[in-house]
């Protein structure tokens, strides 16, 4: 779960909330979802705080394949 992206974690959290709000889960399932949800919301918060930006430049090599090269902001 550590590698999951913020947006993916948020989507999963939303899904869990919807499932819980629909209310047709067994208590065991609900508890499991609830625990997952707590974990996901913690993860989202951590991601918000520790997010690292990643900026690349798209280019094509001689073979015509795409390559991503880091973008240096000094260029800009």
């Amino acid at each position, binding site marked *: 779960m550590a590698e999951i*992206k*913020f*947006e*993916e974690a*948020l989507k999963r*959290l*939303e899904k*869990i*909330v919807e499932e*819980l*709000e629909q*209310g047709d*889960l067994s*208590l065991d399932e*609900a*508890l499991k979802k*609830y625990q997952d*949800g*707590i974990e996901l*919301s913690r993860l*989202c*918060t951590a*991601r*918000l705080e520790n*997010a*690292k*930006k*990643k*900026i*690349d*430049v*798209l280019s*094509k090599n001689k073979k015509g*394949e*795409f390559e*991503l090269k880091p*973008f240096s*902001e000094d*260029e*800009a």
Partner: protein
Amino acid sequence: MIEDRHIFSVTEITQGIRLLLSKQYSMVWVEGEISNFRPSSSGHWYFSLKDETSVLSGVIFSRSARDVPFKLEDGLKVVCFGSIDVYPPRGSYQLIIERIEPKGIGSLQLALEQLKIKLEKEGLFAPEHKKEIPYLPANIGVVTSATGAAIKDILKVLDRRFRDVHIIIAAVKVQGDGAKEEIADAIRDFNEYNDTCDPGDRIEVLIVGRGGGSIEDLWAFNEETVARAIYASKIPVISAVGHERDVTISDLVADRRAATPSVAAEIVIPRKEDLGDQVQDLALRMKNAFDGLLADSVQRREDALGRLKLAMEHIWQLNRQSLEATGQKLFRANPALVIPEHIDKIRERARQIALRLQHFIALKESRFSGMVEKMASLNPLNILSRGYSVTFLMPEEKILKNAADARTGSSIRTRLADGQLISTVTEVHSDGGDKV
């Protein structure tokens, strides 16, 4: 006289006219309305310029036509620059046009309007073709200059806002020769890139744009090739060109228009605080939902217990009733209770038998007494009472029916109605009885 006259050949006079006209009407500006526009297959444009009363033939040769940004059409008011020339084979003259401009509006502006109408007709701006801009895209493609204001603005927004995104820049020229091709190619490249990369790395949205500038600087974003590349893009495109007042063709074709590159970035990169609020909100909703479920579950358990209790009581009641009913049945089936009943029945039967017997006897008695009466009426003694008598020969006590049975001296007894006589026979007469 006749020798004096000067006779021109047709060519001479045509040459003269040509010289005259070209001297007088070289490098002139002519204003008129285009009519009878006829582009030839060789790229030359033939048409007439007219006003209220006159018509002038005109031509734009292909080498000049190439530089005209807008399309000529009948009814368009134009200002042309060129020279009058005579075409000797036809004896006609026409304006050879070097430059042509729409009247009252810039060429570029007219070209823009014309392209807008054309693309509009083709449906490139149709709202139903617009794709939805994804929420919180992980990978964002940017088509702009690597050194321009646009990328700087976008990266500033990124720093201010949520940074957990991957930005991929396709560096292109945004103005000057080749800009439109580079922009269109970059849009196509991103779409192609998506077909080759891992699904998780796919570009989810494109920002295509540049910082502000003059209308000429922004012109690449008004080009048809760029418009068509945006239209063909499978990746949703946000157009972000210059300042707010400039609406380009790209803006019209794109799935979303942002007034500036910063605004475009703000559309796809949300504020960290908003996201934090959203997470908080979701966590709260989750807790409430869970609490609700928990409360429901407790309630359900209590309900179930209550129902169980009720059911048990009901079952108990039913069993009790059944037990009682059986007990009563059993009680009723007690032989001790049955014996007196039977005794009663026997008694009753005995009584009935006695009754019937009495009745029977009474009946018999009454019959008997009838018979007795009847018998009494048959009693010979009753006959005696009428004066008859019966005589018995003694001692045999034999009823005498024939006198001859008796002898003189025989003792006889005569039974009368009341009493009897004992007599001795003195005479016997065997015929008639008055002889006694």
